[in-house]
C-alpha cells in the first residue's frame, strides 16, 4: 500500500477555496502540541489567542488598526507575486515610507503649516517606498540580480537608516535621549475615525485600495497583463506584454503601498518616528498575501485573521506568560501549511494497493 500524489485533470476550485482553512486547521493542531510542550493548557491558550480578542470593542478596533497596514502591503505584494516578481522587502519599503513622510513632519514641526502637511506626507511616503522598491527591480531587469535577495537585504539598510535618524539628527531634544522624534503636530497626524478610539483614516484608505485592486485584476487589461505574465510568461510575450516593464511597475506599486502603510502607521497609531514601528508587518504581509490566495478580498480576510494573531499573542503574553515570539512561530507554521496545502489544488492524494506478493521472480 502506497500513498501517491497524483496530478488532477483540472485544478480544483473547491480546494483553492478550502486550502487556507485546512492550513489554519493544521496550524492550530500544531500550535496545540507546542502549547502542551510549553506546559500550557492548549484549549485556554487557543481561547486567549482566537476568541478573547473578538469579545471586546477595544480589541476589535485594534484588530482593524493592525490589519490595515497588513492588508495594504499584502495587496501590493500580491500584484508582484501574481506577475512572478518576488518582492520580499516590503518591510524596508514600509520603513523608508515612514522615514520620508516623517521628514516633512519633523521639518514643519511647530510651524503654522496648514492642512496640506498630512497629504504631502502620505504622498512622500508612497513615492519614497516606490523608489526604494525600484532599486531591486532595476537590478533585476538590468543585471539579472535576484530580486528576492536584493529586496530582502535592503530591509536592513532601511532599518539602520531609521535608527540613525532617530538617534541622530531627528532626535527629540526634549525626549530624555530616547531614540525618537518629537510627537507629530495635529496637522501631521492621521485623523481618528471614532472619538476616543484608535481606528483611523488608514482603514478607509485600505478598503479603497482593496476595491481598486479588485477592479484592476478583474476588469482591466493591465490586471490581465499582470496575471498572464505570472501564469505563462512565454504566452505573455507572445501576447505582446513586456515582463520587465511589469516587474518595474509591480515593484513600484507594491513599494508605494508599503511606504504609504509605513507613513500612515507613524502618523497614526504611533504618532512619532522611532525604531520598532513595525512588528514585522512587511514580512507578515507575505503570509497575508498567500493566505488570501493573492486575491484582494481574500487578502482582506487574511489580514484580519493575522491581525487577530498579533492581538491574541499580546494577550497570551499578558495572561499566560507565553512569549510573544510564539506569534511569529505561529505565522511561520501557517505560511508553511498554506504553501503545502496549495499543492492539493493541482494534485491529490490517493492510496494505491499493489498486490506485490503475487509478483513472480522471473526477472
Amino acid at each position, binding site marked *: 500500500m502506497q500513498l501517491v500524489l497524483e496530478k488532477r485533470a483540472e485544478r480544483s476550485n473547491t480546494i483553492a477555496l478550502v486550502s487556507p482553512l485546512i492550513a489554519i486547521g493544521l496550524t492550530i493542531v500544531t500550535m496545540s502540541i507546542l502549547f502542551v510542550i510549553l506546559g500550557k493548557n492548549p484549549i485556554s491558550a487557543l481561547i486567549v489567542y482566537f476568541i478573547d480578542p473578538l469579545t471586546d470593542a477595544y480589541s476589535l478596533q485594534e484588530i482593524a488598526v493592525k490589519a490595515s497596514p497588513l492588508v495594504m502591503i499584502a495587496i501590493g505584494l500580491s500584484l508582484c507575486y501574481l506577475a512572478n516578481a518576488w518582492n520580499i522587502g516590503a518591510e524596508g519599503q514600509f520603513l523608508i515610507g515612514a522615514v520620508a513622510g516623517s521628514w516633512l513632519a519633523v521639518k514643519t514641526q511647530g510651524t503654522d503649516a496648514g492642512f496640506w502637511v498630512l497629504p504631502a506626507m502620505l504622498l512622500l511616503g508612497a513615492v519614497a517606498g516606490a523608489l526604494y522598491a525600484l532599486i531591486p527591480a532595476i537590478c533585476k531587469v538590468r543585471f539579472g540580480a535576484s530580486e528576492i535577495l536584493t529586496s530582502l537585504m535592503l530591509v536592513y539598510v532601511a532599518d539602520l537608516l531609521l535608527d540613525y535618524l532617530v538617534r541622530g539628527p531627528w532626535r527629540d531634544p526634549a525626549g530624555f535621549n530616547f531614540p525618537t522624534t518629537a510627537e507629530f503636530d495635529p496637522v501631521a497626524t492621521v485623523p481618528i475615525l471614532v472619538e476616543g478610539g484608535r481606528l483611523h483614516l488608514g482603514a478607509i484608505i485600505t478598503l479603497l485600495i482593496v476595491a481598486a485592486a479588485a477592479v484592476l485584476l478583474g476588469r*482591466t487589461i493591465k490586471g*490581465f497583463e499582470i496575471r498572464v505574465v505570472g501564469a*505563462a510568461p512565454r504566452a505573455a510575450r*507572445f501576447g505582446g506584454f513586456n515582463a520587465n516593464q511589469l516587474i518595474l511597475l509591480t515593484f513600484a506599486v507594491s513599494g508605494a503601498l508599503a511606504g504609504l502603510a509605513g507613513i500612515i502607521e507613524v502618523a497614526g497609531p504611533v504618532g512619532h518616528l522611532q525604531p520598532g514601528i513595525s512588528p514585522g508587518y512587511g514580512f507578515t504581509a507575505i503570509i497575508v498575501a498567500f493566505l488570501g490566495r493573492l486575491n484582494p478580498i481574500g487578502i482582506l480576510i487574511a489580514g484580519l485573521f493575522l491581525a487577530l494573531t498579533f492581538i491574541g499573542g499580546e494577550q497570551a503574553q499578558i495572561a499566560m506568560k507565553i512569549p510573544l515570539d510564539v506569534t511569529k512561530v505561529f505565522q511561520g507554521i501557517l505560511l508553511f501549511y498554506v504553501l503545502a496545502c496549495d499543492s492539493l489544488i493541482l494534485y491529490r492524494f490517493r492510496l494505491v494497493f*499493489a498486490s506485490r506478493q*503475487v509478483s513472480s521472480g*522471473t526477472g
Partner: protein
Amino acid sequence: MLNSAPDLHSTETPLLQTVGLTKRYGDFLANDRVDIEIWPRQIHALLGENGAGKSTLVKTIYGLIQPSEGEMLWQGKRMILSGPSEARSRGIGMVFQHFSLFDNLTVAENVALGLDGKETFKDMSARLEQVSNVYGLPLDPKREVWQLSVGERQRIEIVRALMQDPKFLILDEPTAVLTPQEADQLFIVLDRLKAEGRAILYISHKLEEVKRLCDTATILRLGKKVATCNPKAETASSLARMMVGTEIKEVRAGAERKITVPRLVVNDLSLEPDDPHGVRLQHISLELKGGEILGIAGVAGNGQDELFAALSGERLSQDPGTVVIEGVAAGHLSITQRRKLGAAFVPEERLGHGTAPRMKLSENALLTGHAASGMVQRGFINTTATLKTVDRATEAFDVRKAKRDPEAASLSGGNLQKFIVGREILRNPAVLVVSQPTWGVDAGAAAVIRQAVLDLAAAGAAVLVTSQDLDELAEITDRIAVMFHGRLSQPLATSEASREKLGLLMGGSSLDEREAAHAVGA
C-alpha cells in the same frame, strides 16, 4: 556482453503479452481492455491518433504507470513492474519521443546517468563506443549534447537502450525528428535488431513507414484495440480508416488563387540567438505575396523557432528593413504593432506559448486580440467581446469543449489548436505565420485546420507554414524552402519538390558542396 542474444527457444509463447490491460483516470479510460502480443524477431507497430492511448500502453509496459486492471505476461509468466528500472532489468528498453538528455553534459555522462549498472565510467565509455560502432550509430562520447543534432541526440537514447542488451525495445515516434535519409538509416538498425532476435514495438502515425518496416500492427482508437493486422497487406488509407474510425475528409485546394502584392518580405535577416544553445539566423530572405502559401521544411532545431520569433516580433531586429509586413518596415516593431499591421501568428507550442494553459478561452482570445479588435475600451476588458470571439471560433472551427468558456488546458490538443487557429483567422489577417499547424492533432482537426489555411490564402492572405511533416507541406503549399543551420534555401515549387530533394536540403547538402558530394556518394 552484447552477443548474449535473447533466448530464441521460447517462440511458442509470446515475449510479452497483455491481457485485458486497463488504465483508468477517474471516469476516463485511457486504455480499455487492451490485449497485445509481442513476439521476438518482429517489429510490431502501434498505431493510433493522438489520445488513442498509445503512450499510456507503452508507459504501462515500461513500468511507469500501474495498470488499473488486467495483467502482463513476460515469457508466459505474470509480471508486475514496480518501475522502469525493473522493466530494464527484465530486458525492456524504451526510447522516448522527448529526449531526457542534459545539454551541458557529454554523451558518455548522459549515458552513465541513465544506466543502472555498476561498471566504471571508463569501462562504460569504452562499451558505449563499441555498441555505437557495432550498430552503425557513431557517437563521440566526449562531445557535449548541446553541440549535437537532433538525430545524434536520438542516437544517444538508442545506444543507451541497447547497452542494456534489451530483449524488447520500445520506440516512440522515432522518425518524427529525422530527415527521410536519417530515417532510412534508422530502419537499417531496426532490421538488424530484429534479425538478432529482439522484439520491437514501434509507435508511429506515419503509415507508409509502418507498411514498409513492420511485421504486425496493432491499432488503438479511444483507448480500445480495434484491430491487429499485417500492415503490408493493408493500404495506407485502410490503416487510416481503422485509426480514425471514419473516412477522412479530403482537403479541397479550391479554385486557382489570385496572387497579388507582396505582403510579407524578409530581407537578409541575420540574428544572433539570445540563448547560448540557440541557432543563429543567417541571411534569410523570402518574399510572400497575397494568395500564396510558402512552406518551410527542415529538421527541428535548425532555426525555425528563431525565425518564428523574428517574424512575430517576439525578438526584434536592429534593422527595421529586415522584416516588411504589408509594405511597412517592421523589423523593430513589437508583436502588438505587427498585429496591428495585419499579421497573425500561431506558434508551435499550444500550451504555454499560444495560450496561457490555466486561463479561460476568453482570456486567451484577449491575449492576441487586445490590440486590435474592440476587446479593450479605455483599459477595461469588454468581456462580451472576448466571449463572442470564443463563440465565433467555436462555431466556425467546430471546437469541442465541455462548457462555454473552459480553461485552455482542459481542451484536447486538436480542439485547442482549432481554437488558436480560429482566433487568429477570425481577425482576417493579411499575413499568417503558422508553425507546426497540425502537430499532435487528430486527423479530423488537422483537415479542418489545413482547409482553413487554404481558404485564408484564397481570400488573399499570405501564409507562411513551418512544418516537419512533408506530406502536410505537399498538400497545402505552393512553394517549399528548407531550413538548415539557420539558413533558408531557395524555395522549390511544391510540384517539383520530391522527398529526396527536400531530404538532401534538410541534411544541409546544397549549402555545402563537399557535404553534397558525400551524400550522393553514400
